[in-house]
């Protein structure tokens, strides 16, 4: 946080603005504070800082609370940023007598970063010189990993780079990929043959032809592809398919409209952002580092609960299609699984289950988990060889245009 950066030349409102009483120190400090916020990941632009300057002219600077809220309303625009902002604000705007040094600010970002990535408390935590601080760090780490258990194998997953043959196959698959998994009608209109008369064009035609219109111009509802949500099981029993499945998810995310991707085993992780990277190797490496529950047990009910509570309202709008990829082996709470599947089915347009155990022709989904999933899915996709992406794509191509009514029948008439 050097104090001699290019700060000159920023205009912060009229020169006689009330905040400038202390010889311009405040402006200087504000800009430094803006930089701190930007370093913490907030979207602080010079424009925003100028807005802050202008806004401060309207409030009484003597009230620290108002000053705080003014800065916050301008610099923060996401609830998760509040904590960062508060911390930065407290350190930055304390009285000089409290021993302010730039050192605190430098360590600010560092500490955060450490807290973010480290999920496990050190196994034999040696007491550090600064006992209070160490304690604070520890408690925040535990809070970040509330579902941690010793049995869960926390390790990073290494994915070997894609071979030339695999990349070749991916190309072939992308070419065959359906454009969408169903369309939804929007409330917008587009030109074309339809039942509704395009009144605006009709008016223009009537004026042009002096009222003698021979044809009624029409328009129709515009259609858009439905969003897709992928929920992929990455537990131990699915391990041998994980690599190819992630590859498949990467392909889907790249070729379909609005794809949200999640992986789960004992906990659920959103990987939408990571999997969107163009290069499949980069994407897989990133996911390997982010997701920490590779090859653990399967607790589908618990994971779906988390999904339904935290994510469903955000990703299942607009008539989404959900693809659940799992073998149906489950070690979790089965009644909970029933409840969560019911809720999931009610909140999406279509629920598709891809099952790799269908390898075997005489396979019947008899496991408790499979029995719990089956009544709620609209489509049960037989994948004879999950290791082959083309087969999955073919199954998706052959999907009927509408979800089958079976799910409802099984659920309500059973």
């Amino acid at each position, binding site marked *: 946080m050097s104090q001699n950066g290019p700060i000159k030349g920023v205009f912060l409102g009229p020169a006689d603005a009330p905040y400038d009483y202390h010889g311009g120190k405040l402006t200087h400090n504000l800009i430094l504070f803006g930089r701190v916020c930007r370093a913490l990941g907030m*979207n602080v*632009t010079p*424009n*925003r800082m100028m*807005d802050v300057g*202008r*806004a401060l002219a*309207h*409030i*009484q600077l003597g*009230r620290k*609370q*108002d000053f*705080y*809220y*003014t800065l*916050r*309303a*301008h610099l*923060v*625009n996401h*609830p998760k940023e*509040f904590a960062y902002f508060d911390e930065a604000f407290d350190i930055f705007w304390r009285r000089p007598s409290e021993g302010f040094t730039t050192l605190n600010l430098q360590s600010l970002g560092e500490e955060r970063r450490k807290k973010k990535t480290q999920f496990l408390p050190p196994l034999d935590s040696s007491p550090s010189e600064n006992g209070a601080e160490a304690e604070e760090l520890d408690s925040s780490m535990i809070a970040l990993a509330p579902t941690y258990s010793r049995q869960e194998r926390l390790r990073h997953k290494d994915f070997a780079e894609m071979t030339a043959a695999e990349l070749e196959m991916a190309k072939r698959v992308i070419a065959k990929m359906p454009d969408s998994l169903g369309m939804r009608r*929007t*409330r*917008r*209109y587009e030109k074309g043959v339809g039942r509704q008369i395009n*009144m*605006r064009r*009709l*008016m223009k035609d*009537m*004026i*042009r032809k*002096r*009222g003698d219109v021979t044809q009624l111009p029409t328009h129709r509802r515009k259609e858009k592809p439905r969003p897709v949500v992928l929920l992929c099981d990455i537990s131990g029993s699915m391990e041998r398919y994980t690599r190819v499945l992630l590859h498949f998810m990467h392909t889907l995310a790249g070729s379909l409209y609005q794809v949200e991707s999640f992986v789960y085993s004992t906990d659920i992780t959103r990987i939408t952002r990571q999997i969107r990277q163009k290069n499949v190797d980069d994407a897989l490496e990133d996911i390997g580092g982010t997701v920490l529950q590779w090859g653990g047990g399967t607790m589908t009910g618990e994971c779906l609960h988390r999904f*339904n*509570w935290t994510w469903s*309202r*955000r990703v299942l*709008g*607009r008539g989404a299609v959900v693809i659940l990829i799992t073998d149906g082996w489950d070690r979790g709470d089965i009644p909970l699984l029933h*409840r969560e599947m019911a*809720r999931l089915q009610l909140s999406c347009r279509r629920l598709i289950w891809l099952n790799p155990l269908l390898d075997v022709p005489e396979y019947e989904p008899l496991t408790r988990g499979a029995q719990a999933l089956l009544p709620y899915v609209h489509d049960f996709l037989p994948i004879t060889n999950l290791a082959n992406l083309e087969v999955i794509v073919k199954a998706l191509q052959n999907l009927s245009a509408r979800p089958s009514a079976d799910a409802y029948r099984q659920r309500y008439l059973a």
Partner: protein
Amino acid sequence: MYNSVDELQAALNEQDYIAERGLSVAIYLALKTGKPLFLEGDAGVGKTEIAKVLSAALATDLIRLQCYEGLDVNTAVYEWNYAGQILHLRLMETERRHSPDTEGLAREAMEDELFSERFLLKRPLLQAIEQSRDGTAPVLLIDELDRSDEEFEAFLLELLSDFQVSIPELGTITATVPPVVVVTSNRTREIHDALKRRCLYYWIDYPHFHKELNIVERKAPDVPPMLARQITAFIQDMRAMELFKRPGIAETLDWTAALIALDQNELSLETVQDTLGVILKYQDDVEMLDPTTIQNMIDRANVEAQRA
């Protein structure tokens, strides 16, 4: 107009809206700097209410645009009155036929007549801009923006920066005084940064016990004091549970009204069970509250109410 945050807070208070200091500061700055106010928070915490209260306090009109997916210019900004236009066109044709010496109106003149303000149906956004032309800025509430789609968001971005609308047939209409804009979102999806950047952001949280009690007493003056405390404590307790939809202040007030209508003086297991549908709107949530849980919650609420 208000000259300090305190004045604004007092004015909101007068309208029975109890605003936290941070919210008051944000509103005050929105009024002073002409920036839109962007409010996020769970359903039922009083986001929409702010716009209503603000328009009452400022004694201006409230213009509301409820967003939904596929909301387009025709429903948000303007539309032509086609039926009126066709009728008028027919009349013009007839007139021409009856007076053959006048060659009839030239095409441009006809168009000018048909596409005039007379046949313009003004939708909320245009109304807000039009009213601002007369020098009095209305309050424009853009409700639940997260329900609209990206196309509309992009359009809104343009509108909120210039406060002008162009209608091909009429020209550009610009607001002289920008309207007071309140944008709300339930956060079912993330609103684009570009839009948020132009606004003042405030997250409205569920109120703490005393604030909520204050709201209940304000909005329902005839509620017995003890019952008000019990209700507030019960709801606060409920929000700590893992519910799919936690009750908002709106639900607290609805429940209070329901209990008053049922002539209750205190919470009892039976009444709570009978009126649970006022607070909880999901069957899963209702099932979580079995009689023992409710009884425990009532007991806790009683203790809390005595103490407060």
